[in-house]
């Protein structure tokens, strides 16, 4: 067994840490306040190959590996959960399904620009009435000549307001239930496709969470992803991988909050000494650090399994469940350690606590992860 990073991963970590300190951390609080999507940061990330880390160079990727991509999400999340989910949704939820299910023509057409970060990607499954119950899709797609006509709407779509390419799910044959769902590659400019409401959120506030509206939207039939009827399978397998990204985001948030708490405990004095000398708080740190370490092991084990071609669906669900709960636990404790100051916007821990919550909800709520885990175990 070997837990060490490769030389390449080590260099990548050094680069990511510098990038985050110089380019991401300084604006994290500001974009949380203004809700301004970090488009300039995305452009900087693109120049460094960060928008296509785990994909081969031949198709426009950066030639890195999955573990390095997970590390990038984690490092970004230590300072800014918003920026990390932009990367995670783009890579795991848009680039990956095209890579895994696309035809050679689709890959050649869409991947180079996506992987170089010239285009941003998004994934549109959730609907007002199809959340956890994603199979009850109301959006329909009807083949008419050379086009599918899409009608319906999607909600809560990450990167929605800024994405160029969307993976959109719709019913092609309602009589077949989940086997009647299909996936499509939809471009921003397609006729009949428009943006609706942009959500005002508790956390990850600068990530653009948008409603998508399809009104007789014409999608060329060659933009069907995979075959008709395998849309649900595409969605579920995409989310299996995406969950490792969200788990890494949760892990990064927890690590970021732990670091802040440790730093503050050494500086803040009460009763004439640093609060770090109080055993009550020391025990918090012990619990926080232990859970972070456990989460980290789950996240990297799942990432390693994916990278080495093993079945990772159970590991991904466990990693996401535990890392997101850890993020909530650690950020809540961090605010506690900061006392009243932690409750103000003068320190980053209140933002981290707000950001942590979403990791228990999207890409399958904690309840859904437990369904996946128990179904795997009880089968």
């Amino acid at each position: 067994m070997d837990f060490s990073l490769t030389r390449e991963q080590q260099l990548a970590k050094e680069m990511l840490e510098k990038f985050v300190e110089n380019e991401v951390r300084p604006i994290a609080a500001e974009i949380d306040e203004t809700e301004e999507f970090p488009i300039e940061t995305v452009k900087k990330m693109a120049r460094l190959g960060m928008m296509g880390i785990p994909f081969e160079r031949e198709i426009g990727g950066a030639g890195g590996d999955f573990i390095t991509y997970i590390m990038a999400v984690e490092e970004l999340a230590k300072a800014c959960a918003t920026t990390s989910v932009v990367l995670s949704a783009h890579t795991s939820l848009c680039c990956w399904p095209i890579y895994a299910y696309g035809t050679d023509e689709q890959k050649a057409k869409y991947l180079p620009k996506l992987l170089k970060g010239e285009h941003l990607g998004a994934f549109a499954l959730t609907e007002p009435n199809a959340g956890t119950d994603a199979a009850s899709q109301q959006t329909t797609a009807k083949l008419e000549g050379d086009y599918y006509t899409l009608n319906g709407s999607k909600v809560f779509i990450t990167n929605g307001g800024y994405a160029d390419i969307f993976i959109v799910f719709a019913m092609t044959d309602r009589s077949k239930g989940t086997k009647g769902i299909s996936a499509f590659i939809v471009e921003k400019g397609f006729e009949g496709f428009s943006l609706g409401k942009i959500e005002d959120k508790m956390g990850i506030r600068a990530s653009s969470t948008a409603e998508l509206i399809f009104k007789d939207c014409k999608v060329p039939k060659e933009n069907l992803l995979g075959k008709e009827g395998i849309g649900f399978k595409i969605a579920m397998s995409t989310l299996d991988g995406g969950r490792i990204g969200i788990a890494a985001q949760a892990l990064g948030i927890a690590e970021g909050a732990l670091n802040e708490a440790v730093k503050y405990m050494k500086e803040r004095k009460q009763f004439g000494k640093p609060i770090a000398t109080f055993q009550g708080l020391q025990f918090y740190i012990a619990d926080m650090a232990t859970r972070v370490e456990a989460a980290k092991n789950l996240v990297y084990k799942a990432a390693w399994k994916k990278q080495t071609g093993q079945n990772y669906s159970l590991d991904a669900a466990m990693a996401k469940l535990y890392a997101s709960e850890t993020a909530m636990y650690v950020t809540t404790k961090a605010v506690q350690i900061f006392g009243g100051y932690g409750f103000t916007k003068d320190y980053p821990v209140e933002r981290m606590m707000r950001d942590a919550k979403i990791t228990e909800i999207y890409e399958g709520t904690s309840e859904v992860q437990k369904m996946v885990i128990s179904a795997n175990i009880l089968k």
Partner: protein
Amino acid sequence: MNILVFIKQVPDTNEVRIDPKTGTLIRDGVPSIINPDDKNAIEEALRIKEEHGAKVTVVTMGPPQAEKALREALAMGVDEAVLLTDRAFAGADTWATSLVLAKAAEKLGYDLIFAGRQAIDGDTAQVGPEIAEHLNLPQVTYVEKVEVLDGKVRVRRAMEDGYETLLVKTPCLLTCIKELNNPRYMNIYDIFTCYAKEIKKMGIDDLGLDKEEVGLVGSPTKVKKSFTKGPKAQGEKFDVPPHEAATIVCEKLKGMHLI
């Protein structure tokens, strides 16, 4: 155009400790980085490459571990890397260091040479200028702007109270300061190929140098003693009018036999 960039691996701290017995730097336990000015040198070479086309080669003299600095430079996008390493090079002063670097430059060929102004550990700012002298090349130090023209470069040299603009024939050597540019980060593309690239290694024989010319033996500088400044004792404070203060100061200085 062939551009050589001399880079030095330095400990990641401004507080280098010195072994009081040997007078050499203690490097154990301190993470190593590319000397900051040298990153500006790399960035400028890469910028010129992107604008005009060039082959950029980084060169360092150091122990085998200095390879890490070269890999980092490759991960920033330089084309080739050369490690000058030999037991005989150990303990070199700036003269012996610059001689080895100059010989390497001769062997490798160049149209333009960049060095950092100053290394954050040795701190002498002598190596760049000395390489130029060994090679009999024009040199400009404290460079904060470079423009490549036909057969020459226009460079801006920072002065304490302004700058000089100089037109210099190539080949020449320029030493870089941090005002020159913003060094780029390593990038994922080059990080994942940098270890597959071969690093050219050259020792004393490859450079055609004698043992007497290099390393500690070839170093005219003799370090008699080096020490860290001890902390100053706390001063005495007198809250008195100026004329009384003057008397007190004179008495004290007399007492110490300084006046």
